[in-house]
């Protein structure tokens, strides 16, 4: 089943036309949408719940908590427009805190694919799992990373650059900026690995990070309770004590509007800023 909260114009048309019995627009009513999805899942349907930005998380967080998460129902929430994808539309549409909000809920698996190849991996997981899930995806799939540069590890860890000294770890489409930053850092003599995590919860085994003397986490999301926080927790569990820098959005800038690139730059998530922050930190 595919449920939408009155979004997906021109995107969901072919699904609706081909599978009308499996499609339901519930209108601008996310709390109801989650409750209905829970009821469908109780009856052994496998609903996917589609919306954008913060609507399928914050608007209906209690329903996700009490109805879906608590009962471990097979409801699969998809939020389009991660990070600053909808930058010009303002803070209401900036999806930069959803990982933090959902991470604390039991039983929900969380995915954040950066590119279509990662999304394919995530989709296989979603189809084969009966657990509730939340997946955030970029608005555009223009981000293309040459496939030959990818090495796929376990649990949705994709490696885009191989080094031995410093690991840059990221999630979601900010990957492009991280790869570009790694190029620059590489050209000035640093030995960099780049990892992109398509799965955030359950957080994967990160024992392979033991070899790095420094670790940097980069996310298009708040650093309070997001991907970087998950990483720090995991590092503690795996006894990885390498100094770690966590980069993310700046909460004092939440009134800004502009293009995705403009906002990323304002939050120091463009490649140049990432390079600068890392080199300044390494110099300390």
């Amino acid at each position, binding site marked *: 089943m595919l449920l939408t909260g009155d979004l997906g114009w021109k995107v969901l048309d072919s699904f609706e036309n081909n599978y009308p019995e499996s499609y339901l627009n519930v*209108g601008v009513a996310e*709390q109801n949408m989650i409750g209905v999805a829970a009821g*469908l899942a*109780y009856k052994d349907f496998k609903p996917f719940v589609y919306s954008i930005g913060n609507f399928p998380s914050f608007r209906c967080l209690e329903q996700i908590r*009490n*109805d879906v998460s608590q009962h471990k129902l097979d409801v699969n929430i998809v939020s389009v427009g991660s990070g600053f994808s909808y930058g010009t539309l303002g803070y209401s549409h900036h999806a930069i805190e959803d990982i933090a909000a959902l991470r604390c809920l039991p039983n929900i698996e969380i995915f954040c694919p950066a590119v279509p190849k990662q999304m394919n991996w995530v989709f296989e997981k979603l189809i084969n799992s009966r657990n509730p899930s939340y997946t955030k995806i970029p608005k555009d799939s223009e981000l293309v990373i040459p496939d030959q540069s990818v090495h796929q590890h376990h649990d949705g860890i994709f490696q885009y650059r191989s080094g031995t000294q410093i690991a840059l770890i990221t999630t979601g489409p900010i990957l492009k900026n991280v790869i570009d930053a790694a190029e620059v850092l590489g050209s000035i003599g640093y030995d960099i690995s780049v990892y992109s995590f398509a799965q955030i919860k359950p957080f994967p085994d990160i024992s392979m990070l033991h070899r790095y003397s420094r670790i940097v986490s980069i996310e298009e999301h708040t650093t309070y309770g997001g991907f970087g926080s998950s990483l720090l927790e995991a590092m503690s569990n795996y006894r990885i004590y390498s100094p770690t820098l966590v980069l993310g959005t700046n909460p004092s800038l939440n009134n800004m509007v502009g293009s995705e690139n403009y906002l990323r730059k304002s939050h120091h998530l463009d490649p140049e800023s990432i390079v600068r922050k890392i080199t300044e930190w390494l110099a300390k």
Partner: protein
Amino acid sequence: MTSSIDLKASDIASVARKTVLEMSFRARTSHIGSSLSCIDLLSAMYLRQFESHELGLGNLVIVSKGHAASAVYSVLNALGKISNQDIEDYCTDGAVLGGHVTFNHEYGIPLSTGSLGHALSFGVGIAYAKRLRNESGTVYVLGSDGECDSGAIWEAAMLAAHLELDNLMFVIDRNGLQSMKRTEETLKLEPLANKWKAFNWHVIEIQGHLHSEISEALDFKLSQPIVVIANTIKGFGISFMENSIEWHYRSPNKEEYLNGISELG
């Protein structure tokens, strides 16, 4: 002439009322007033759930008014579904039965509730699923009047009517009180029937302690969703608990418990 299901429902309700009083006294829990107002409704609804299973039909009861947990458990106990031991352990450490309706597959409770306004949406999902599968049976959702303050109820109401779900019935325990004052002093619900009609539901208003009226309403079928506004008395059955906000919160002391037991016969 009273039908056999009404007699049965009435008997179940009588037994369950005493159990609710015992549970509230023993566990020192709140919400006895809220439980007593919906025991007659729940008896009739659950009879339909369990008898329909035997007949291969699929009526299902979902309780959105989760704080009436003791009423739910008492009725299920009177129907022989919940064990006496679990009733005795209600709200004790590690208990299976919590102070708000607690999910239990074995006992026929599909959803844990406790936050108002959730279960009508859940019921819409189930009713829609049943229709997609051509399954028979009605989804009965029990809610409270105070719960109609919640926007989520009206989101569910709109979708149910839009989908013309003729297998969904929302039964409102209209006891006229909520947490602080009467509903009409808090957030005016009246004209409540008109609100539901405006949302394209068929409205049936009944006296919520009269089993003949309850039966007639629960068995009504139309081509649209139905709301049953059941006028009830909070604390029904125990004179000193009736129509009282205080008994939303208090549990009876020993003397009150004994007085209540003697009133309930």
